[in-house]
């Protein structure tokens, strides 16, 4: 039986309240951390090998260590709760069901690099998570776990919820900072990196919710314990959000490195209606698709990178044999087109162009050169933009065109979609398609 760490309290009644959290040992790690030197916490988290759960997998302790110690500017922690990557729905539950774990983790992180201000940037649609966080912050303030001279330690920390307003790009750390400052979410050119020049010009760390929720556990139980929960350099458990054509979609906490085929066919009960598996997107919509033959891969950062994809946010999207992969590509391109901030030409012009080509292939108006043109466009976008949103479109589109080329060619040859778009799960109800946009 796998140990549940982040989700251990999810079933406890009133898990979001301070009294429940403290009865279960909550804020003990914060007390311990406040008795340590900030540098010791950074060393501990570095030794654990905790890697960022937002998508990039960057070592958290190393990120904290980049903050200059001698800076005379105020330092900031931004907690990235923008959770916009299609397929991802993990941080939402951490905030709803265990908000104090997020706050405690954030407090320890802020203490470790000597920040006195933290903002939890929550996507605007998440009303309940925001309410829970705000109520939890209020409780923490009253108990002197946030605020001035926390528990008599001399350390001050203010922490606030900052709502987003519907922009995927704000999940990118510099766009998030821009948005936190009250601007349009346009990513910044790096360097300077946020650790040096970030929020309000001060040294800033941006960490994902799930990453921070792990910090109290590492303080309590040590770096070795964390490392022992997963493969080398990929320690801990991971929240995997599974959606699509499986019998039991949902959020699962499993050891880092659990094989993907075990997640799909074991944990999630296999395919719906016992249909055949066609493909899996392993880490959110930006990660390259894996075919049914490629899913004997371990779900950790390094194994998926070796398999030509990414762990991303651990959002597993499962597709059965009846799924049209051109339609999937078209839908993803529509999303990235909608979300491009318009700052960089390759993304602003290239992504809508990709979408246009995919719409014409899907609607039977594609030409023979189109798949090649799609690949060329991907090559011209990837690596040529300020932020990774362009890459996030190019990577999955390239993988879909390459791995399912025969489907693209069949659309072009037959001048129609052989499947007819997404499957209607309610075939008994005739639904007239509205204008495809």
């Amino acid at each position, binding site marked *: 039986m796998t140990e549940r760490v982040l989700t251990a309290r999810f079933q406890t009644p009133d898990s979001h309240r301070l009294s429940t959290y403290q009865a279960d040992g909550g804020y003990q790690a914060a007390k311990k951390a406040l008795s340590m030197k900030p540098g010791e916490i950074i060393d501990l988290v570095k030794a654990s090998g905790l890697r960022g759960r937002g998508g990039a997998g960057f070592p958290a302790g190393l990120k904290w260590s980049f903050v200059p110690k001698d800076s005379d500017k105020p330092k900031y922690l931004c907690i990235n709760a923008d959770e916009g990557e299609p397929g991802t729905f993990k941080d939402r539950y951490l905030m709803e069901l265990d908000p104090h774990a997020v706050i405690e983790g954030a407090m320890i992180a802020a203490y470790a690099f000597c920040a006195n201000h933290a903002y939890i940037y929550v996507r605007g649609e998440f009303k309940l998570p925001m309410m829970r966080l705000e109520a939890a912050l209020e409780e923490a303030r009253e108990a002197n776990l946030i605020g001035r001279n926390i528990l008599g330690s001399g350390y001050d920390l203010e922490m606030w919820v900052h709502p987003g307003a519907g922009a995927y790009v704000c999940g990118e750390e510099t766009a998030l900072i821009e948005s936190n400052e009250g601007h349009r979410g346009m990513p910044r050119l790096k360097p300077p990196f946020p650790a040096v020049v970030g929020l*309000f010009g001060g040294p800033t760390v941006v960490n994902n919710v799930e990453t921070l929720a792990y910090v109290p556990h590492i303080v309590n139980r040590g770096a070795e314990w964390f490392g022992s929960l997963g493969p080398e350099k990929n320690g801990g458990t991971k929240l995997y959000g599974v959606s699509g054509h499986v019998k039991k979609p949902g959020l699962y906490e499993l050891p880092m490195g659990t094989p993907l085929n075990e997640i799909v066919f074991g944990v999630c009960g296999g395919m719906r209606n016992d249909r055949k598996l066609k493909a899996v997107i392993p880490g959110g919509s930006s990660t390259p698709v894996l075919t049914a033959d490629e899913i004997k891969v371990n779900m950790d950062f390094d194994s998926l990178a070796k398999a030509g994809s990414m762990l991303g946010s651990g959002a597993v999207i499962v597709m059965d044999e009846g799924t049209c992969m051109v339609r999937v590509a078209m839908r993803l391109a529509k999303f990235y087109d909608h979300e491009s901030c318009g700052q960089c030409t390759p993304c602003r012009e290239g992504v809508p162009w990709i979408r246009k080509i995919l719409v014409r292939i899907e609607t039977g108006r594609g030409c023979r050169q189109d798949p090649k043109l799609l690949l060329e466009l991907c090559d011209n976008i990837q690596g040529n933009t300020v932020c990774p949103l362009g890459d996030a479109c190019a990577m999955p589109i390239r993988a879909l065109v390459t791995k399912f080329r025969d489907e693209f060619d069949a659309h072009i040859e037959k001048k129609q979609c052989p499947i007819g778009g997404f499957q209607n799960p309610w075939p008994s109800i005739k639904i007239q398609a509205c204008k495809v946009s």
Partner: protein
Amino acid sequence: MIEKIAIGPETEKAIAEIIARYPVPEAALIPALHKVQDELGWLPLEAIDWVAGRLSLPKARVYGVVSFYTMFRRSKPGRHRLEVCTNLSCSLMGGEHLRDYLCEKLKIQPGQTTSDGRITLTEVECLGSCGSAPVMLVDDAFYENLTPETVDQILEQLHQKETRGGVS
């Protein structure tokens, strides 16, 4: 058309509290716009002017932010808002079909409001609820694992709410 707007004292107070959280007032822009929109239901130009005045920012600067973020409504919505997700995880489970079903039932296209001003239907991107797809927001509340039957029930409930309790 010029909308006369009046921002209530509670919203004013909430915005003053939010401003105090940041080293510069302009950082309160997005939360302040949310507060004003929560009160008015949308952001008419006059509301944008009001926020600009409150934060001492140029109007164009505020409008630029309003137009960047999809949650800020620059036109008046119906009395209820349905926002249906059609991103990948939802559409694998019927999200696009639900959008079409709603279009058929309400006799409108996404982005439109019913002629009686009751319901605005919007197609939205991923709402972060993919494990319980398909999903839609009804006046900001999540409705998950939807089917045409549950959609019918939701529409019926909205109808009853209005006929029973007057305009809600």
